[in-house]
């Protein structure tokens, strides 16, 4: 059954009619063409689908789209300001923290949530914050370095 829902995605207010069993991930990728957010496992175990709901990290593969009624959602597409990369994105590029890139959007959103709450996290806190995001390529070190470098400066 379709239901009406309003929410804000990357500062843009929207009203959509959505099938009640659709996940936020399906709506982002398939209805809104925001394909930056990835599906890895679809089962809550990899973090590739991480977005921010009201600044907290959430798995869009396990969130019903109707559950985010009147909430603000941020995805990787919302980070750039004009042509400028967000400092976290830039830091990932500069540190070579991206290989295949599949985990990157989720990883960056988890890091963004952490830095929003704690602009100067310790290395241990960075590791904890991204511990729900799997990366099969980088070995994590460069990702942690990338987040650490902007938390110091």
């Amino acid at each position, binding site marked *: *059954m379709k*239901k009406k829902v309003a929410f804000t995605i990357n500062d843009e207010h929207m009203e959509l009619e959505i*099938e*009640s*069993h*659709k*996940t936020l*991930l*399906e709506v982002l*990728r*398939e209805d809104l063409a925001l394909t930056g957010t990835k*599906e890895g*496992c*679809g*089962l*809550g*175990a990899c*973090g590739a689908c*991480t977005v921010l709901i009201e600044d*907290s*990290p*959430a*798995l869009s*593969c*396990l*969130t*019903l789209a*109707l*559950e985010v*009624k009147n909430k603000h959602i941020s995805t990787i597409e919302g980070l750039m300001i004009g042509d400028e990369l967000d400092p976290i994105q830039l830091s990932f590029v500069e540190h070579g923290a991206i290989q295949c890139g599949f985990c990157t959007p989720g990883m960056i959103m*988890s890091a963004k949530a952490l830095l929003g709450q704690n602009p100067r996290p310790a290395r241990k806190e960075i590791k*904890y*914050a991204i*511990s*729900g995001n799997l990366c099969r390529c980088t070995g994590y070190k460069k990702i942690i370095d990338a987040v650490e470098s902007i938390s110091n400066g």
Partner: protein
Amino acid sequence: MLRLPKADYYAPLSLSEACSILAEHGKEVKVLGGGTDLLVACKLRNVTPTFLLSLSSISELKGIHFHEGEYLKIGAMTSLHDLIVDSSISDHYPALSQAAALVGTTQLQYMGTVGGNLCLNTRCIYYNQSETWRKSRDVCFKMGGNVCHVVPKGKKCYAVFSGDTVPALIALDAKVKLVNNTEERLVSVSRLYTGDGKEPLALKSGDLISEIRLPPPTKSQSSTYLKYREREAIDFPMVGVAVRMDTSDDGICTGCKVVLNAVDCGPTEVPQARELLEGKAPTSDLIQEVAVEAEKRAHPVANTPGSTPAYRRKLSGILTHRALHQVANGLGML
């Protein structure tokens, strides 16, 4: 894309409305807390509700408050993250905030609720699999069939209960308020579980958990929750143990509860802890005796990834030993 089965959705604004919907629709409805267990089960077609009843818009189900010095009230829809960061919990009921911090991953802690953790379904490597995977074997008891692939001659399902906050809540003598369309009642958390793998919860049809109540904190109490899992960052427990101890001014143990997690179809209390320790000053030898009893109480079967039953039994003793030492030390008793 892994998709959910078609289901209708309703998000009532009040508890009473939620209860009447539940009473009317019975078994076709599933209650949606944070969805981190239920929606996975829906995607895997372990359950196919026709109707999801979301509790997320009911504001009376959220939050942590002391109630006139009588008890600490935690709304069922309070997130695990809030249990970790709220100082009234981390200061007075450390086992609970430690357990919440050991559930899944950061994202799951923000999304998952304490009510959902209490009602977590039991798990098994033959059950938590896709429909296609399961089709390669006979349908087991948990899915409505007549065999068990873990205990081949078994007459029932042995799926394991592993909700991490539950042993902590039992050790802390927590109660839950159950509400349905006609009544509300307070029940000890330990009485919520049937010990049956297939139907692990002793809820009546139409029951919702609305809140959790913890007895008022005392200065002479300490508690902890320890958990061992394959991957530190994400996995369900191989074994968990919650310990709570109370002490008198002269270092005598006046109360003790030890509750194991993930070694049976429900949380497993070790009653010998009380018998062996209460009325005495804890010693390393006494703690070792309790650890041996914990190992005997554990009945793990081969349904958990990454470990054998023998390993988990042994681990039950080791973690109990560690947790008791930690708590007794913290109270200055050792």
